[in-house]
């Protein structure tokens, strides 16, 4: 396989040769290609992400871990993150969206938190198109079925329809977890000689090169090149949640990491790299679903519902007991080493040997030049005087009948939003969802927002508005906005106009976040959201979380009594 087919550039390949001191073999090249993809390596976005404010009194864990964590007092913390599953959903909407939910939920319980709420942000083409309808229905059903089965309420979200998303829908899922601060877990393996355990689903050929796939534009070819579609197994995930949280309660693990994009390669590399350790993995010990899988396939598979566990010394037996109780098999597939090298064995045969740091930190970073797109100047020339005269009544009716404004009950009625019996402001009743925290007087509020048309017309102000809207939505239910997560859904950053959109939007978001005192604690970047036709609107989705310190002081949006005064605040 040629490195270019794997999405690596000539310069990147030279860098790899330097790290390796020799030609990499196919597996080694594959490991670099997934770790250095935009999805895992953030090579186009990292410099921009530095603009975001990440500090604040409430921040326990900022960006860099599986999810961000904030302090909400009394020893409690909230863990949250949003993530995209855009390209898989474009190919197979039901499974793509379902596995997107599965992935973000794993990010949360990996940190030791119990997932307590889900939200989602969805964007599709216009509903008069049959394929779009299918995508829409499939995505909503996929999100619903997965979250419903897990018993995590899906409490909020947004849906928006515009032609720019016709070929490339956006499917972002957010999860919030609750954890006692002393039970927070990070994905760190610190002790050479620790076994590395893999638990959950068996490994199949699905999703190989999903990470690279997510980092390319959608084209006719991608249909042919696409990885075998991953099918979600929410029941397996539910068992994993319960079993993994038990391990944490009993303090049995050093490190825990979910397997997401780039499968074993990235989860192992990321777990051992923080303390400068290495690892050796024997692919023959990985339980498989299919016969004849090569080391390449085993290492790069993105099969869902799998977790990596690094046990505390002497806890292996108890861990095995707990997994057995939940009907899960855990396999020891390798061990942590001291030498900073990632070694892959196939039994006796060594099949790959790569310096861990080269994978996790070696990825080059690109600072690109942006260019102001032509449409922007036109948009700036806008003035309300240029608008045509319209009949106000007709305009009003047309607005109300737009799917973008109409009730979203069709969507949220498919989501169990009440399981866990915490949801006190239900979908459709407030600008943000509100959940009580049992045993306290506190409540948490959460919302996801982005007006992508505004971001398109003016990325800088649009970025600001996304943050401001989220914060306002929280304020409207009576919550103090605390921190946010975000998913930057943009087109191909190698195009200067797109890079400019990205840059400006991040600047705007950052400025607004500083003013409002709401730092970012986690996020995800999804670039290359383009088809041969067009790029999507720049869509930096903001998921914001806030607190009500007295849940009785909450407010939904219904008018309460005849005769009450109606005020309009602001300018």
């Amino acid at each position, binding site marked *: 396989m040629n490195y270019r087919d794997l999405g690596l550039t000539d310069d990147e390949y030279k860098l790899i040769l330097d790290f390796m001191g020799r030609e990499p073999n196919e597996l080694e090249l594959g490991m670099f290609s997934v770790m250095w993809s935009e999805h895992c390596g953030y090579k186009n976005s990292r410099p921009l992400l530095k603009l975001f404010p990440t500090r604040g009194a409430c921040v326990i864990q900022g960006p860099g871990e599986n999810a961000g964590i904030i302090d909400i007092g009394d020893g409690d913390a909230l863990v949250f993150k949003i993530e995209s599953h855009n390209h898989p959903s474009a190919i197979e909407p039901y499974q793509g969206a379902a596995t997107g939910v599965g992935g973000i939920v794993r990010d949360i319980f990996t940190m030791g938190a119990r997932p307590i709420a889900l939200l989602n942000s969805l964007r599709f083409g216009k509903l008069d198109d049959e394929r779009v309808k299918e995508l829409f229905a499939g995505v909503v059903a996929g999100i619903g079925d997965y979250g419903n089965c897990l018993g995590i309420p899906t409490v909020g979200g947004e849906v928006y329809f515009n032609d720019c998303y016709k070929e490339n829908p956006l499917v972002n899922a957010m999860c919030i977890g609750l954890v006692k601060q002393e039970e927070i877990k990070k994905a760190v393996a610190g002790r050479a000689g620790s076994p590395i355990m893999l638990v959950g689903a068996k490994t199949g*050929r*699905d999703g190989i090169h999903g990470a690279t796939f997510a980092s390319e534009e959608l084209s006719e070819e991608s249909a042919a090149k696409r990885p075998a579609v*991953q*099918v979600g*197994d929410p029941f*397996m995930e539910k068992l994993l949640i319960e079993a993994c949280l038990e391990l944490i309660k009993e303090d049995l693990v050093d490190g825990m990491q979910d397997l997401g994009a780039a499968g074993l390669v990235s989860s192992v590399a990321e777990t051992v790299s923080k303390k400068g350790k290495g690892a050796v993995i024997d692919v023959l010990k990985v339980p498989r679903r299919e016969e004849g899988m090569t080391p390449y396939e085993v290492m790069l598979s993105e099969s869902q519902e799998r977790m990596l566990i690094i046990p505390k010394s002497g806890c292996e037996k108890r861990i095995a007991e707990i997994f057995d109780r939940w009907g899960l098999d855990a396999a020891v597939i390798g061990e942590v080493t001291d030498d900073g090298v990632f070694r892959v064995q196939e039994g006796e045969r060594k099949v790959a040997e790569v310096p861990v740091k080269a994978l996790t930190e070696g990825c080059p970073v690109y600072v690109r030049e942006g260019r102001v797109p032509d449409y922007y100047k036109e948009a700036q020339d806008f003035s309300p005087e240029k608008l045509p005269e319209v009949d106000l009544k007709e305009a009003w009716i047309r607005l109300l009948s737009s799917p973008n404004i109409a009730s979203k009950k069709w969507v949220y009625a498919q989501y169990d939003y009440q399981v866990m019996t915490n949801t006190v402001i239900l979908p459709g009743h407030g600008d943000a969802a509100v959940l009580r925290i049992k045993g306290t007087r506190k409540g948490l509020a959460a919302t996801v927002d982005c007006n992508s048309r505004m971001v398109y017309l003016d990325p800088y102000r649009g970025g600001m508005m996304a943050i401001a809207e989220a914060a306002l939505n929280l304020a409207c239910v009576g919550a103090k906005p605390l921190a946010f997560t975000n998913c930057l859904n943009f087109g191909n950053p190698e195009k200067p106009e797109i890079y400019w959109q990205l840059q400006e939007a991040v600047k705007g978001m950052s400025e607004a976040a500083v003013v409002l005192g709401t730092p970012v604690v986690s996020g995800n970047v999804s670039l290359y959201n383009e088809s041969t036709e067009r790029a999507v609107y720049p869509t930096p989705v903001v998921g914001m979380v806030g607190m009500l310190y007295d849940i009785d002081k909450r407010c939904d949006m219904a008018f309460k009594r005849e005769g009450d005064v109606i005020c309009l605040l602001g300018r």
Partner: protein
Amino acid sequence: MYKAHVYVVLKPGVLDPKGDAVKKSLHVMGYKGVNEVRIGKFIEVWLEAESREEALRKVEKMSAELLANPVIEDYRVEIVGGE
């Protein structure tokens, strides 16, 4: 009128969580010898057509378009009855 049977199965290699759950529970019930279970769909279609061939052609087409999801499933059609 003709009657067709459509068998829809998951492509080889595609995870079948339902089949796996059923296999496990069969083991618990004492059917230890069960090595694998895959769960697909069995669809019966009654339709008007000029001939057996046309019926087959039609059902093949609707299977590809709607009854099976080509991304993860394979299908097979059989005409089993009709004039």
